[in-house]
């Protein structure tokens, strides 16, 4: 970004010196369980979301490990076919609806967005809290399905299987319906916050890229989720009353259901990846100590991904829709790759001639670039018509989406957790063990999922409890990788927990980043800022200097000769 600020927008020198904070931080501001139950503070809601989604991740992860264990050998290893079907369905449903969709926006985003923007809170704090409770309700319904008759439809709920099976489809879909509203509320809140709550000086093109990505995510949440809502409502009506929208026996059309479902669920994959891309932009820039390369292209590409993402849903149905539709959707599918590529190349260019430090968050960010690139590029095999016909519903697809969802979104989420952890809880963690966990996760991840590409292209269908013996070798490799991966994630959780009990106090700005959330104390006070922050270029890190004794970065005293607003930087 080339905008250089006129010197008048800079604060006088003494304002940047860390003054003792008089206000207690948001965690200690009020005490007692009731102060959490009724809280309207976006930071506390973010923390509650974090606890919720991590619990969901743990559940989904345990199920994944059971799924992988079952696949060690053909036929029965540890469970029967029905148990297996319930297991992968709930794994998929929990991971998507309970974990990855709310992960970055609702947990990290809730906490960071208003502070990064320089606002006191999101536009509608009550709706924000409501969204959290809706998440809890939805989770209860979804998980209740497990306790009732289980759920064996796959996370896609395809009709007429889902309308005829005797598992608890109504409870589960009602849960997802409610979760959808939770997501819509977050989306409405973020759009309104970004539009209305920006303080003076925070122009659109001075917004950090994380905010751009949350904003474009929110657009998808608001435009796509209602369609999922009506689809699930119709599915429930179909099961409970037999209204026959999707049942061919009653004059309905099962492929119509697929269109409805993917009209939401394809954009939903960009709900998962866009915030992740935003996190990565912050991380790469901060730890290279250089402004993000091609800031404007990054902003536009986020918006482009959000909109193009609405045009390609039919690529999940190449084997069920008409040939004409397949050709159109295939062509449109490739369009999304261009803005995605721009992002990858701009991240690389940001590294170029930077001053790169391999901190834990940065390790996750670099892993993200590699894994997301593999995931994205394998998406091209699926977008190409001839190859998708062969690869559809095989493990190739399973590998593709784990690379983008887990190697992409999840790695970015964990990286973001490590990055903002000091801000969230005011504690530092062990860099050494953090990096080790990243290494184990990176290796374990590839070990688990790369063999699945080969499995899939060699013809192994997905959602298979039993399989032909010729596929066993690769399944065994994949399963052993999953155990290794599990160790890495447990280590990672241990690093966080250890930091909570034993961590060193975090300074306000441990990384020397220039975005606003680092200009307030760690953890922040109740109203985010004691003094109104002054908005500058979000990536202008050159002015920050490390103070050896505190580990804090503070802004260098302003000297007019350094930058007087007349020179241009690029």
């Amino acid at each position: 970004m080339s905008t250089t600020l006129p010197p008048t927008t800079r604060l006088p020198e003494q304002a940047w010196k860390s003054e003792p904070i008089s206000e207690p931080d948001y965690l200690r501001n009020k005490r007692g369980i009731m102060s959490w139950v009724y809280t309207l503070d976006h930071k506390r809601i973010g923390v509650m979301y974090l606890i919720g989604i991590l619990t969901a991740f743990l559940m989904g992860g345990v199920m994944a490990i059971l799924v992988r264990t079952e696949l060690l050998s053909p036929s029965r290893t540890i469970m029967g076919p029905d148990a297996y079907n319930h297991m992968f369905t709930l794994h998929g449903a929990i991971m998507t609806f309970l974990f990855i969709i709310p992960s970055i926006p609702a947990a990290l985003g809730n906490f960071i967005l208003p502070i990064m923007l320089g606002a006191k809170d999101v536009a509608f704090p009550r709706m924000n809290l409501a969204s959290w409770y809706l998440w809890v309700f939805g989770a209860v319904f979804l998980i209740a399905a497990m306790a009732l008759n289980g759920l064996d439809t796959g996370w896609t709920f395809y009709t007429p299987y889902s309308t005829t099976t005797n598992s608890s489809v109504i409870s589960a879909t009602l849960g997802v319906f409610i979760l959808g509203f939770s997501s819509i509320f977050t989306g409405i809140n973020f759009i309104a916050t970004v539009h209305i709550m920006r303080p003076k000086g925070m122009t659109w093109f001075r917004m950090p890229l994380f905010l751009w990505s949350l904003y474009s995510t929110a657009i998808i949440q608001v435009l796509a989720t209602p369609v999922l809502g009506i689809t699930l409502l119709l599915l429930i009506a179909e099961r409970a009353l037999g209204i026959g929208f999707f049942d061919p026996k009653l004059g309905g059309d099962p492929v119509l259901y697929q269109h409805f479902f993917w009209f939401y669920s394809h954009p939903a994959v960009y709900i998962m990846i866009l915030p992740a891309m935003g996190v990565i932009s912050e991380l790469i820039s901060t730890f290279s100590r250089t402004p993000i390369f091609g800031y404007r292209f990054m902003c536009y590409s986020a918006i482009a991904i959000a909109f193009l993402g609405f045009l390609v849903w039919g690529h999940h149905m190449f084997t069920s829709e008409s040939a004409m539709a397949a050709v159109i959707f295939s062509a449109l599918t490739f369009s999304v790759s261009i803005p995605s590529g721009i992002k990858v190349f701009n991240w690389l260019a940001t590294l170029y001639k930077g001053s790169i430090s391999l901190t834990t968050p940065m390790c996750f960010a670099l892993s993200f670039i590699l894994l997301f690139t593999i995931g994205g590029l394998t998406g091209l095999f699926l977008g190409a018509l001839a190859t998708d016909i062969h690869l559809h519903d095989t493990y190739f697809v399973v590998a593709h989406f784990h690379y983008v969802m887990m190697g992409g979104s999840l790695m970015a989420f964990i990286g973001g957790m490590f990055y903002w952890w000091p801000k969230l809880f005011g504690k530092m963690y062990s860099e050494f063990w953090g990096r080790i966990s990243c290494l184990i996760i990176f290796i374990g991840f590839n070990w688990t999922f790369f063999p699945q590409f080969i499995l899939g292209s060699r013809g192994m269908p997905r959602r298979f409890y039993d399989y032909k013996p010729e596929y066993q070798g690769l399944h065994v490799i994949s399963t052993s990788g999953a155990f290794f991966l599990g160790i890495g994630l447990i280590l990672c959780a241990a690093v966080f927990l250890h930091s909570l009990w034993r961590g060193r106090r975090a300074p306000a700005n441990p990384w020397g980043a220039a975005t606003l959330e680092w200009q307030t104390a760690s953890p922040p006070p109740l109203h985010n800022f004691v003094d109104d922050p002054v908005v500058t270029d979000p990536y202008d890190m050159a002015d920050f200097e490390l103070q050896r004794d505190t580990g804090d970065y503070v802004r260098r005293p302003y000297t007019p000769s350094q930058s007087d607003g007349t020179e241009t930087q690029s």
Partner: protein
Amino acid sequence: MIAEAQLSQGPAPHADETFRAHHFETAEQQFAAAKLGMWLFLVTEVLFFSGLFVAYAVFRVLHPEVFVNSAALLDTKLGAINTVILLFSSLTMAWAVRCSQLGQQRGLVLCLSLTIAAAVAFLGVKGIEYAHKWHEGHLWASQYGGPQAGETFDRAGSFFSVYFAMTGLHAVHIIAGIAAIGWLLKRSLRGDFSPAYYTPVDVVGLYWHLVDLVWIFLFPLLYLVG
């Protein structure tokens, strides 16, 4: 629309700070947020209904004759009466907003009450229609048992599935609207609203107009086919 002159007589709009939440700089900012929030919500509502409109379009393209024949089974007169009732309620709602902006307390209460009355009347007519369909067996696909079931209108059930899904969902929105306007009525009796603070009236008004608008589409699409 309110004339500038009228506005300038009373207090400036959004000057009342009583209901300003702490995180907004000004009441004006709060009003802007509420309004944007409601517009976004309306966008989600439109998309929510759009699923049903798409299903309608798909089924109609596949079986145009079914739609023409089945629509004849609906009571156009009752549908038309309901259309008039809803248009009237839109008018009273718009008037209510105007009253709140002008500080006309009694007018506001009257208009809100009329709107609720119209909404209830709408549901009453709808109830009569539903009861009628129930008696004749003109129900959704799996329950369809009209006299012509299995014969002339083989798939009439599909049409009635669409009919019940669309009008049913719309009726749920009317009920939600009654609740929201009831809340406005309560607050207006308490005297919360004034030219300096009328955000809730404005915002609920937007919602109500959308609900009316959906009906304006439903009426011709369901009753006037053919």
